[in-house]
């Protein structure tokens, strides 16, 4: 057995803190490019004007290092831990939590977390984050910080369909979810869809689907076709930027699928606003 690569938890704190700030200040190039293309394609003058304001907002936020949106989110963190990596100097979960605390403090980000969903007192430092763990091969640590705002998360939905409802049932549920949401989740949206697995697996797939770069093709040709049709059907709803009417309601639909039970067809729809914020580091 060889020597394990080591990584100090203090590095994890610093990197997580930086990712929290960067994710909230700077939109990724693929998101900016998608908003730019939407502006070219939108037929509503009001819609085009709103998309131009979103571009201005993104430049201003990056330049002045202020948040793109005041809802700097509940901090969702996807972590991939290489099984050959040895962490030193503390617990990884505590290090990520400390990084969130530090990033939200130093970045003047809003503290939007209540410690108990029924008692509802603010924790004051935006912790705890929601962490999704994955153990992978290798000796690296990959951290993706995804601040998730409530406006779009609140309009997300999950349904356990009957297998007989099939592909059309899935598509109709996705379109209906966007239609019911209307202006609330801040369209134009990125729509993450998870199909299959169990209830919680479908929900997690829907969130993971949001992280695929915008403009990239789904490697599964069946799902790629489903995505194309869903984008067209969603944009035919007429909701438009900010719900004021227009032909660009979705910037993209991303679908992930997983094997499921002979008697199940779970489908989850995770809506994200136009400000699809995420930053990743590999240590």
């Amino acid at each position, binding site marked *: 057995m060889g020597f394990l690569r080591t990584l100090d938890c203090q590095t994890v704190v610093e990197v997580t803190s930086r990712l929290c700030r960067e994710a909230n200040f700077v939109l990724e190039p693929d998101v900016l490019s998608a908003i730019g293309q939407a502006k070219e394609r939108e037929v509503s003058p009001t819609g085009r004007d709103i998309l131009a304001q979103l571009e201005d*907002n993104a430049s201003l936020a990056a330049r002045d290092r*202020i948040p793109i949106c005041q*809802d700097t989110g509940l901090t969702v963190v996807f972590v991939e831990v290489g099984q050959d990596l040895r962490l030193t100097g503390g617990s990884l979960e505590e290090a990520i939590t400390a990084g969130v605390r530090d990033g939200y403090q130093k970045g003047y980000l809003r503290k939007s977390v209540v410690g108990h969903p029924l008692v509802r007192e603010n924790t004051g430092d935006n912790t705890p984050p929601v962490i999704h763990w994955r153990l992978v091969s290798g000796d690296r640590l990959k951290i993706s910080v995804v601040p998730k705002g409530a406006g779009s998360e609140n309009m997300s939905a999950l349904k356990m369909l009957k297998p007989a409802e099939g592909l059309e049932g899935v598509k109709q549920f996705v379109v209906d979810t966007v239609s019911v949401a209307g202006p*609330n989740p801040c369209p134009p949206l990125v729509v993450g869809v998870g199909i299959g697995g169990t209830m919680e697996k479908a929900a997690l797939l829907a969130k993971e689907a949001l992280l695929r770069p915008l403009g990239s093709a789904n490697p599964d040709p069946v799902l790629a076709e489903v995505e194309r049709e869903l984008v067209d059907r969603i944009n035919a709803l*007429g909701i438009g930027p900010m719900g004021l009417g227009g032909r660009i309601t979705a910037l993209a639909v991303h679908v992930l699928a997983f094997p499921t039970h002979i008697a199940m067809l779970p489908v989850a729809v995770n809506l994200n606003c136009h400000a699809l914020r995420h930053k990743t580091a590999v240590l």
Partner: protein
Amino acid sequence: MSDPRRIVLPLTDEMVAELRAGDRVLINGRLLTARDAAHKKMVALLQQGGRLPVDLKNQVIYYVGPTPAPPGRVIGACGPTTSGRMDAYTPALLATGLKGMIGKGFRAPEVIEALRRHRAVYFAAVGGAGALLSRCVKAAQVVAYPELGPEAVHELIVTDFPVVVINDIYGGDLYREGRRQYAVHQ
């Protein structure tokens, strides 16, 4: 798109009567902020027969929880939050003389009916444009419920704060009308 009209608060009945769904408006003057927790407290106070910590007569409430102001700035990002969460509380506040609200997203039918009854208007600002909107805020201070942190009631002095009328007193609804105009029937 017509040119935006500039208005100076407070909002009077006469001004409300002139606003129609779809109008773009630049708001100037003093806004009050309140969201979930402040609404809950204010309505509880009214139910107990108490007096509100701020007078809402002819005022406009902006549904926002800003990010903390970094050094050298008046306020952080300050875009609108989803209005529907305030629906349960809104008719009670309209009854005290509140004349306008700024947020984003659908209002409940009871709120739309209360807007007509109390002659008030619902505006939307661009959601997710928190950095851009912060430039319209010239001064900010907490005026009630400081213990609520980002949910405290702030007074904001704004210049040419851009909004659009969603629901007017005549039953106009821009979300419904805009969508109808651009929907493609398949």
